[in-house]
């Protein structure tokens, strides 16, 4: 099994409490299925929207990133899959896709020594 990172970007919260709850339940069901099939290495963490950017040799610290909401990474998960194709296939079940969100699937680099 190889390791992959799912980066979740964008996605809108439900407009009503009922929609928000349904979204929540979909995420739980999706993670449960992934875990049952042995694909979850680490469920990961949510990330706060606001942070700092540190830039250049002069180490200038600014508030940010102020990317558009749809480009902001909201959290990540570590996934186990056979190959990149399988990992991408697994990401198709992510509920964020139903609400204009995006999953970025990136293989964790392997060191062949």
């Amino acid at each position, binding site marked *: 099994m190889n390791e992959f990172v799912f980066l979740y970007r964008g996605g809108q*919260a439900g407009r*009503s409490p*009922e929609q928000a*709850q349904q979204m*929540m*339940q979909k*995420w*739980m069901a999706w993670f449960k299925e992934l875990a049952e099939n042995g694909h979850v290495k680490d469920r990961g963490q*949510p990330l706060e929207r606001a942070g700092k950017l540190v830039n250049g040799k002069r180490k200038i610290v600014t508030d940010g990133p102020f990317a558009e909401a749809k480009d902001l990474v909201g*959290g990540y998960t570590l996934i186990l899959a056979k190959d990149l194709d399988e990992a991408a296939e697994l990401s198709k079940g992510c509920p964020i896709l139903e609400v204009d969100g995006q999953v970025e699937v990136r293989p964790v680099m392997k060191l062949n020594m």
Partner: protein
Amino acid sequence: MELSEHLFRHEAGRMVATLTRIFGVHNLALAEDVVQEAFCRALEVWKFRGVPENPSAWLMTTAKNRALDVLRRERTARTFAPELTRQLESEWTLAPTVEVEFAAAAIKDDALRMMFSCCNPLLSEEAQVALILHILCGFSVDEIASAFVGSHAAVEKRIVRSKKVLAGSKKLFDISGAEDFARRLPAVQRALYLLFNEGYHGASPEKAVRVELCQEAKRLTSLLLKNALGATPSTYALAALISLNAARLPARLDTSGNLTSLADQDRSQFDQALAQEGLRLLERSATGPELTDYHVEAAIAWVHTSAERTEDTDWAMIISLYDKLMALRPSPIVALNRAIAIAQREGPQRGLEEIQAIQDSERLAKYPFYHAALGELEIGSGHLEDAREHFVVALKLARNPMERSFFEQRITLCK
């Protein structure tokens, strides 16, 4: 940890009520924003870490912390609840005051206070019901529009307008004064009654929506019963009528969601626990001299629920109860139901006579079940051709696919 059904909706109502108490009713929109943020945060965190042990407490704490931020940030720019102004100004008293307002007992009162505030006499009854659904039950405009068969635009306009009236009322309704409480109570009961009726008889094609409306009416009525001033005989009667009718709800629609006529209802599907609860509430309502229309309607529901088969129904009792109801709250619909009961006891011909004698019957002209009742009685009298005509009219007036297919079946039967 699984989320209980409609947890977010119910918590939304509780949080808005409590936040409005602290922010002041004029800051209703701000309270709604804070609630929205609390849900966004819950969604983001719970996705990864799982649902916490006590999700309600988690949401409340998140709302409380956001409220503290808002109060600190905006206390120079905004005025908050007038009766709390002084405590919120000083950093020494700010957090303890907010803490007290978020205590369990206070939150319960907040919901009741909001319920009474929504039943503002400046608003129509329909607007009051919509406002209760939106603020206290956490339904979005779209969800309310689907329950009331209104267009999204019309429902949104009504809610926006009602919120303005509420936000303009300076203060939330004070539920501690016995006199004011008693004066506003009938309007609150009426709104809950209408909310239940919308679920029970309403036109929404969706079965789930209707059951939810009935459940909300039941939940809010039991909240009213928990308050010493709210637990009057008439509130008990209202709670009884809700439980007794709700007990029959599973049988009103068949397995494919189609309407069933009274005679065809499968009584084994009645919810016996609800029926028993209704009976207990009905007994508790019988203290004191007050006899309200809720008492009478609850009694009618009990007679229906307690009959083992349709033909065992005590129609004489039902007719006399409808006579009482006509005296208390006359309406063409009550008169129609009375006529149907008379037909059950004295034959379809007598029923038709009674229907013809209804005053203001033109107000029933657009009600599909008025024509359907005429159709049923004509079938009973053997006049299939006349019956068919009535059902054709009913079909034209049908408000949803369930009603449509029900009338279509009746038309086929008349051939």
